[in-house]
């Protein structure tokens, strides 16, 4: 009687496990790179410039009506 093991379920279970393990091994040991390799340029964070602006008005302001959340300093 011929052993027709390919008809046994345990054969296919074992086969699938083997193929999966083999593929996993190949994936980790010989990683396949798909498509072109894109290496990102190293980014340098430029320091954000803080500008100093002096506003000289000939007249005067009614400060009650001004929004004051601009870091405005009143002089003199």
């Amino acid at each position, binding site marked *: 009687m011929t052993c027709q093991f390919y008809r046994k379920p345990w054969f296919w279970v074992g086969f699938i496990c083997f193929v999966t393990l083999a593929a996993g091994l190949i994936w980790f040991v010989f990683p396949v790179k798909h498509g072109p390799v894109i290496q990102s340029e190293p980014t340098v964070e430029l320091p954000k410039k803080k500008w100093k*602006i*002096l*506003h000289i*008005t*000939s007249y005067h*302001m009614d400060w009650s009506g001004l929004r004051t959340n601009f*870091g405005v300093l*009143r002089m*003199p």
Partner: protein
Amino acid sequence: MEWTQDQFRGFKDALKGLDIEYKVFEMDTKRKSSPEWKEKVGREARELIESWKPDLVYTNDDNAQEYVTKYFTHSDIPFVFSAVNAEPSAYGFDSSSNICGVLEQEHFVQTVRLLLELKPDIKRIAVIVDDDPTWNGVVERMKQDAPEQLKNVRFISWNVIKTFAEYQETVKRLQNQADALALLGIHTFKNEKGENVPWQEVLEWTGKNSRLPDFSFWKDRIYYGTLCVVYVSGYEQGFGAGKLAYEILVNGKSPASLGMKPTLKGRPIISLARAKRLGIQVRSRTLLSSEVVHTIAWEQ
């Protein structure tokens, strides 16, 4: 002053998104107009520039140019101005490498045309101006434009006035000589103590004692009873200056390459309350094309 605040608000809006530390120096030369005061605050402002070393200076109106900016022509600090009435050459800006800005050229002809829409029989206009040198440029432009563009109207007198008493006397005298008044500078009329009478008080007296229609070029006058104005927007002046500042700071442009131009748009505004006091019927067409103010501050 609304005029000053509108400019500063426009300037800041044009630079939105940038990290900016502002300092504001108020020369306060409307309320204190003596030459000594102007010299003193001008010197203080110049010292502040030297000590604080700003990246850019934004100046507005003429006194700041006369007492501050003029001293920094050809310096390394960029200056941007707005609301300057005089010709740039008056301050030596035309040949300077570090100065640019927005000129304020009043809508004189349009304002008189608005006045004529309200009262078509006006033929004689008297001009009143205080002794602040700011008005020299305005008066010169009016004298230049009037004969060519306003052929049916005659400017009968140009009154330079120093005291409030002189102003009262002049306005009373003009009631029989003129059909309308152009009220330009009304900020430095002195009272008996030598102090400036607030312009709001000047307009209150005018509204109660003059039966002549009057006009000016600045929006804030309307709320105190001036009949009509085609005004230069302070916000647009400041916004224009802010855009120039952006080009200098962010895009690295030289101020000299940006030039000096006036804003063009004029906005008509009418005091309906004053029109009623003067017995003027305003046509609906005029009302629809203008901003309308229904009250006068001193009536409330």
